[in-house]
């Protein structure tokens, strides 16, 4: 990450902490990306499930745990609505956090490139 031009720019503990934080944020960023992908998939699945519900049957086999329980269609609709609500909230929270992480990373990038210029490389491999 720190390339040598042979020059020895002074590094302080604060700089080290900035680099550490940048690393942490980068990891968090990737984790969030993965979680957002999964949350979006879950959302889509729930949407599809709602659409599937538009049938004539009053009893739907709804998966709870590993078994499929016979549940009345109304209750299934309610359950799916609740699950959709929970997942959308979760997705929104993840996206907000991702935005904040990206902003913080940009800040740190500015500071670190400002001080170390060419001696540091903060890009993804």
């Amino acid at each position, binding site marked *: 990450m720190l390339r040598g031009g042979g020059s020895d720019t002074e590094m302080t*503990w604060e700089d080290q902490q900035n*680099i*550490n934080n940048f690393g*942490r944020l980068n990891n968090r960023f990737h984790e969030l990306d993965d979680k957002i992908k999964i949350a979006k998939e879950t959302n889509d699945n729930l949407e599809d499930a709602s659409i599937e519900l538009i049938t004539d049957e009053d009893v739907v086999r709804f998966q709870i745990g590993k078994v499929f*329980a016979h549940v009345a269609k109304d209750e299934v609709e309610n359950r799916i609505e609740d699950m959709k609500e929970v997942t959308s909230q979760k997705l929104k929270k993840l996206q907000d956090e991702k935005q904040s992480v990206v902003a913080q990373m940009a800040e740190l990038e500015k500071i670190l490139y400002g001080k170390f210029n060419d001696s540091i490389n903060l890009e993804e491999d």
Partner: protein
Amino acid sequence: MASSSSASGTVVTERRGIPGAQFVADVQTYLTQSGLDVNSALAFLQERLQQYKLVEMKLLAQQRDLQAKIPDIEKCLDVVGTLQAKKGTGEALLTDFEVSEGIYSRARIEETDSVCLWLGANVMLEYSLEEATALLQKNLENARASLEVLITDLEFLRDQVTVTQVTIARVYNWDVHQRRIQQAVATPTQE
């Protein structure tokens, strides 16, 4: 564990068995204090890095296990909750469950006051619905708490890895710098 005494002031010297990486403010001071020459210092730091990587793999595996366990417990809670909801109604719960891969059968679960929970090690215990909910809830909280601690451990570890990588780069750069200076000093005398 003895804390590393240096002018640099690392905040945490170790966490749960993971040694902290010493922050190096000045390479020259670090080399003089440790009494190592450049190559030995680099070798030591590389070895530290390897050790960190090993611990990281172990922790990541534990994290994956916990992350798989938590949704499982949540599903169990869901089932117990459903059974509890059915209790007042007088209806039986009809479910289709997997008998073997790809083969399902229908089960009729009458109103019940108790469930059996698989505790592991080939042990299954019968609990009342309330007790089962309480036990599962406690397991869920424990799992979530362990996950929190684990994530903090991983963050600490990654910081130490970063510090060590930075130190390796700086020691190497310092060495290059020193050689250049020596060459610059040596060349005039050759002429």
